[in-house]
């Protein structure tokens, strides 16, 4: 999230004085709301929510077997609801409530002090908080891809609730919160490559390892049951991502415009990269391939979107698509873990590639907006980026592992083999997606 708050344009202040002379002095001295920025951020917030429900839900829902369709849609939807309440109770405060280096404190728990007149930068604090909430929703929802078709719904709810509290909120504070130690170190993460994607990807990998493989993996046929859903979901993710990346400027300005443009470019570059690599190595281009590539591109450009230029975006996108392709087709097969829908392969790997390439292409010499003040060269910036990546991987990996091990001992993580065979829709929800 960009922490740049634009000064209110002088002409707007002048117009305010003419229209509302009584308020003119008050406006000059206190932070004030910019209508254009607010209008855009209201819109961006709705776009990012659309990414999870129904975008991500459909993207994932189409990739599982028919008997588990509803369980995936349900997981995404329930996460949306659960994280919303946790956010207003303590999440917003822990992430953005105060100035601490490691957490934001509890001063804004229960949304204390956040009212109609609260201002954050140039937008109402209510809008800022809701915008950030939609990020807190999609991050744990991304992890779903790693444990579909086998995790208990109750264990899933406990895991997500604890995970956002112990992993997401602190890391969001480190990178974006005021006083957060990673943001202060000069890590460039415009819209959440580290906080959202590497974080979710690593948590997904740990989930896949702790829960174990789906019964029958990899020998049994587990082909996606409806790639039409997947394409619709990927398209909604793409559209919603404009809110995610361009919205992260927190203003309606030139940086937001550039973030939108580079998002479009990187996504297209990654989708085509995946398609052509697959075409070359397996003989045919696939729908799942081009959709996966698009999402990998969106992930890769996320940290870079406010920093790189259009040509840098092509490289960032192509790099994300290329490495994610090899992660899901070769790395996963070789290591043998069942990251069922490639939460790590796509979000973790493309997130890491994007975070590192941000340090390269944010350089003014390569068409970017400039390195952070803490870096004197591209290598220096890449080093800072690697620090952000490394800290996230280690912290997220360790804490996720502990949460899962505790829950496994207390309540168990997996459904019974019989329920897994029946399918989670019937076994856990007494419903089925299709009556054919």
């Amino acid at each position, binding site marked *: 999230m960009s922490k740049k708050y634009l000064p209110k344009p002088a002409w707007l202040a002048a117009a305010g004085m003419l229209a509302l002379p009584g308020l003119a002095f008050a406006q000059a001295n206190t932070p004030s709301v910019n209508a254009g920025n607010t209008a855009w951020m209201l819109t961006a917030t709705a776009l990012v929510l659309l990414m999870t429900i129904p975008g991500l839900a459909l993207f994932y829902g189409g990739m599982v077997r028919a008997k588990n369709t509803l369980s995936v849609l349900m997981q995404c939807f329930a996460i949306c609801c659960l994280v919303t309440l946790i956010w207003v109770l303590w999440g917003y405060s822990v992430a953005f409530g105060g100035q601490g280096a490691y957490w934001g404190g509890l001063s804004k728990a229960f949304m204390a002090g956040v009212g109609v007149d609260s201002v954050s930068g140039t937008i109402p604090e209510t809008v800022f908080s809701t915008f950030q909430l939609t990020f807190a929703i999609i991050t744990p929802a991304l992890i779903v891809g790693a444990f579909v078709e086998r995790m208990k719904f109750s264990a899933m709810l406990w895991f997500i609730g604890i995970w956002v509290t112990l992993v997401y909120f602190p890391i969001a504070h480190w990178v974006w919160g005021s006083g957060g130690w990673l943001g202060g170190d000069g890590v460039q993460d415009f819209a959440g490559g580290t906080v959202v994607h590497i974080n979710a990807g690593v948590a997904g990998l740990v989930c896949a390892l702790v829960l174990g493989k789906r019964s029958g993996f*990899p020998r049994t*046929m*587990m*082909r*996606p049951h409806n790639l039409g859903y997947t394409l619709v979901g990927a398209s909604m993710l793409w559209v919603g991502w404009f809110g995610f990346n361009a919205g992260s400027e927190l203003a309606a300005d030139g940086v937001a415009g550039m973030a939108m443009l580079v998002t479009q470019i990187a996504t297209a570059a990654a989708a085509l990269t995946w398609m052509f690599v697959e075409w070359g190595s*397996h003989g*045919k281009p*696939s729908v*799942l*391939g081009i959709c*996966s590539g698009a999402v990998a591109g969106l992930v890769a450009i996320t940290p870079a979107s406010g920093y790189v230029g259009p040509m840098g975006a092509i490289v960032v996108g192509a790099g994300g698509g290329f490495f994610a392709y090899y992660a*899901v*087709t*070769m790395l*996963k*097969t070789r290591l043998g873990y069942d990251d069922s829908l*490639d939460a790590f*392969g796509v979000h973790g790997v493309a997130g890491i590639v994007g975070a590192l390439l941000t340090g390269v292409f944010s350089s003014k010499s390569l068409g970017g907006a400039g390195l952070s003040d803490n870096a004197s060269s591209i290598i220096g910036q890449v080093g800072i980026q690697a620090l952000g990546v490394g800290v996230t991987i280690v912290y997220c990996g360790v804490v996720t592992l502990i949460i899962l091990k505790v829950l496994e001992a207390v309540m168990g993580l997996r459904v019974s083999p019989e329920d897994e065979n029946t399918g989670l829709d019937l076994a856990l929800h007494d419903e089925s997606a299709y009556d054919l």
Partner: protein
Amino acid sequence: MKLIAAVIKPFKLDEVREALSEVGVQGITVTEVKGFGRQKGHTELYRGAEYVVDFLPKVKIEIAIEDTNLEEAVEAISKAAHTGKIGDGKIFVTELEQAVRIRTGETGEDAL
């Protein structure tokens, strides 16, 4: 009386139905089936995960027919369903002992 059971490629169903109408066949029963023969299955690839699909979708048609019309009907099917590529299907002919038209109670060839 004979019973013809033919397993054909699904996209050939309309042509086969028309060819049978032309030789005077009054009714057929169609079932969507799956199976394999010399064609074997095919492979599908999802993000690098390769699945062998053993059974391919086919259409099975069944026709009860008088002995005298058998040759014509079998020829109509084999011509209409022919593509020359592997997987065109097979035609099986068996003796049919009895047929009953439920509405009228007619039996034997009168019921066909």
